Each structure stands twice: as C-alpha cells, then as structure tokens.
C-alpha cells in the first residue's frame, strides 16, 4: 500500500535509525564540550581589550551560529515536506523548532551578559542582537502555529510554508537591521566586532561549536522520535512499541 521512494522515509526505519544515533551524539557532545569548555574557560588567554569577558564568546557564538543553522535546517525540512510530500519532514520541523529557539535564547542571554561589562547596559540595540531577537520571534511563530492546529496533518503544511517564508526573510531582516544599526551608529560604543582569532582561542571555539552541534543533534533526534510516534499513533508498530514499553 505505501510505496516509499526513500528507505529512510519509512517512519519505523527512521525511528530505529535516530534511536541508534542518540547515544553516539550524546557521547561525542559530552567529550567535545568538556574539552572545549575546559580549554576555553581555563586555558585560553584573556583578551587584551575585553579581559576575561571574552570567555563568554565560547558559548555565545556557537549558539548564535547554531540558531541560524537550525532555522535553515528547518526550512530545508519544510521544502522537502512541501515538494516531496515527506511526512517525516513535518516531524523534523516540529522537532527542530524548540531546540532552535532554545539556542537563540542562549545566544541572546549570553550576548546581553557579554554586553553589560562592555557597555554598561544589559540590553543594547546592536545589529546582531536585534536580528537574533527577531529570529527568536520567528521560531516562536513556527512553534505557535504548530500548536494552533488540533490535528497535526493539517498544521504540518502550514508550518512548512511558514518556515520557508521565514528563511527567505532572514537575510532581508539581517541586512535591514545591519543598515538600521549603521544609521544609529551613535547608539553603540564599539562595533560588536568578533575578537581577532588567536590560535589558542580558535581551537576551543571550534571544539565548543561541534560539541553544541552534536548536543543539538541528540535533542532533535529525541524530539523527532516523539513527533514520529505522535504522527503515526495508529500504526501497528507503534502500538507494539507502546505495549512493549508497558511491561
């Protein structure tokens, strides 16, 4: 009855596959993060200009990059959902959105915490922080639209369209905010320039980044499993799983 083109498009296979991935992702993320944070916090030198606050850099920038990257990943899932009618892609969007929003929130809070010692106020309407905030709104939009529909199948198409519309608007928002920020150059004391990358700073950053990426991967896989179950709750393999879980 179901003629699946792609082997992983079968929900059960996808469920088992992501199940196997999770322990690996967890392990790698744990190792990378512990090394990266240890190096970043304890070993790497303080920045001549910003002093110790530069250490926030090792969590702020990975989170910011991930928040942008996850939104693009969500948009790709949206595209594949609409173009190839991949049911699993709907589950992927619903899985990625909250994790993306979490990393955007981390980027915002760490950005604000970094801004306080440098400019004396918690929140500064700097170009990057403002576009990060707008990205957070986009994520909340996708999550809210997903929850608004009672039955998941109807909501899924709407969410993938919103994800696509969002990703098209991301560069537009980014550059308009950038332009807006130069317009009010007086507002920010120093340009939010990323510190020049001494090698001793670059390695911990890269390790931290991949650590965060694998952590995000593991969270997404777990939520993906939940979504696959929710969308195939009538399937026999899901019922067996529910019964197996029972005893």
């Amino acid at each position, binding site marked *: 009855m179901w003629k699946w083109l792609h082997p992983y498009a079968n929900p059960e296979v996808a469920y088992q596959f992501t199940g196997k991935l999770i322990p690996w992702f967890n392990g790698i993320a744990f190792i990378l993060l512990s090394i990266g944070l240890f190096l970043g916090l304890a070993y790497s030198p303080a920045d001549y200009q910003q002093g110790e606050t530069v250490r926030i850099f090792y969590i702020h920038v990975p989170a910011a990059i991930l928040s942008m990257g996850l939104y693009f990943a969500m948009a790709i899932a949206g595209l594949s959902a609409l173009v190839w009618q991949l049911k699993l892609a709907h589950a992927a969007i619903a899985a990625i959105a909250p994790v993306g929003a979490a990393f955007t929130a981390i980027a915002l809070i760490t950005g604000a915490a970094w801004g306080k010692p440098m400019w004396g106020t918690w*929140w*500064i*309407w700097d170009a990057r922080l403002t576009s990060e905030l*707008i990205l957070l*709104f986009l994520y909340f939009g996708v999550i809210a639209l997903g929850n608004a529909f009672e039955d998941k199948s109807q909501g899924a198409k709407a969410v993938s369209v919103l994800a696509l519309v969002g990703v098209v608007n991301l560069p537009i928002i980014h550059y308009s905010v950038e332009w807006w920020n130069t*317009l009010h150059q007086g507002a920010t004391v120093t340009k939010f320039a990323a510190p020049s990358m001494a090698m001793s700073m670059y390695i911990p950053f890269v390790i931290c980044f991949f650590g965060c990426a694998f952590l995000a991967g593991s969270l997404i896989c777990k939520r993906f499993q939940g979504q696959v179950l929710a969308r195939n709750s009538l399937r026999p393999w899901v019922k067996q799983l529910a019964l197996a879980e029972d005893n």
Partner: protein
Amino acid sequence: MNPALSYRQAFNTILKRDLKIALRHRDDIVNPLLFFIIVITLFAISVGAMPNVLMTIAPGVIWVAALLSTLLSLERLFKNDYQDGSLEQLLLSPCPVFILVLAKIVAHWLVTSLPLILLAPLLAMMMNLHPDGYLALFLTLLLGTPILSLLGAIGVALTVALKKGGVLLSLLILPLYIPVLILATAAVEAATMNSPYQGHLAIIAALFFASLITAPFAVGAALKVSTN
C-alpha cells in the same frame, strides 16, 4: 430543597473551570505576551535606538503595549461561552450573575495580565527605563491592569453577540482606558524624576475599586441585553 450553592462556592467553581480551560489553551496565554514583546521591539526599532530617546518614551510605550495586549485577549472572555451555549447556563444559574462574571474576569486577569506584569521589568530594561521607574511601573501595572480587564469585560459583554465584534470592541473600550493610561504613565515619569508619585497611584487605586464594584453589574446587564 438542596442547600443553595454558597456564593463563594459558585465563585470558586467558575474560577477553577476558567483557569483549567485557559491552561489547556496554553497558546492563549503565550500569544498576548509575544504580542507585548514584539510591539515594544517595533517601537524601539522605529524610534531608533538612542538610549536617551528610548528612556523618555519607555513608560508610554510599555503601557500602550500592555493595554493593547490586554485588549487582544479580552475577546476570549465571553466569546466561546456564547458560541457553545454555556453563557446561557451562566445567566440562568441560581447564583447572581455579577459573582460569576467577577470570577471570569479574575480568571482572565490571572491568565493574561499577571504574566505580563512579571515580564514588564525585562522589557523596561530593553527600553532602557530609568532604574527608579521600575517600582512605579510594577505598581501602576499591578493596579492598572485589573481596571483594563474590568472595563474591557463590559465592552466584550456588549459586543459578544456581534459577528465582527473585534474592531468595535476596541472602539468602545479604548476611550475608557485613557484615564488609566494618563495616570499610569504620569506616575512612572514622576518616579523617574524621583518626585513623589503616590498621588497618581491613589487615583488609580480609586479607579480600580470603583470599577471593581460597578463593572460586574454592568457586565451582567450587558450580557442579558446581548443574549436577548
């Protein structure tokens, strides 16, 4: 004859039911809050991010945003009950209508305005509000938002039977909100210049008690009229 339901029990039953329904519709709580944040971000971006400019307009912007997001979520107060018929059951219950209406308004206030008040300091920070203004903002919101809910309930009760009640609702209620808005923003501004603002608070408190006593009766009458 069974014991007549004491007014307190009726009040609690309605309050519990409404809170349970509101919590089951979690996005009804979150959406007005997101609206509140986005409106303030729009103001900040459009006005340009000069700290001193933001500081002067901060009280006004926060209060207008709070007012609009309360207005946004007022619709929910009687609309669903009218559509599924439980509003009639409410009007026909042995317990006087104004107590049930008060319970619904309190439930609405707890669900929409309380989170808003807790979020306001975070946004005051984004708007670069003067540190002295935080307490005044908190107090004016704490006393002001119940007035918004009470007066708004009258407007909703009047327009509940109309199909396109939304715009008409804001047309009816916004004029009623102007005194609260003026007093509240004046209080916060007075606080930022650390001159005494207790006078403003006292008047807002007086407005609050006046509307607390008169609004439920007005809403009861309005509901009887609109379900006629």
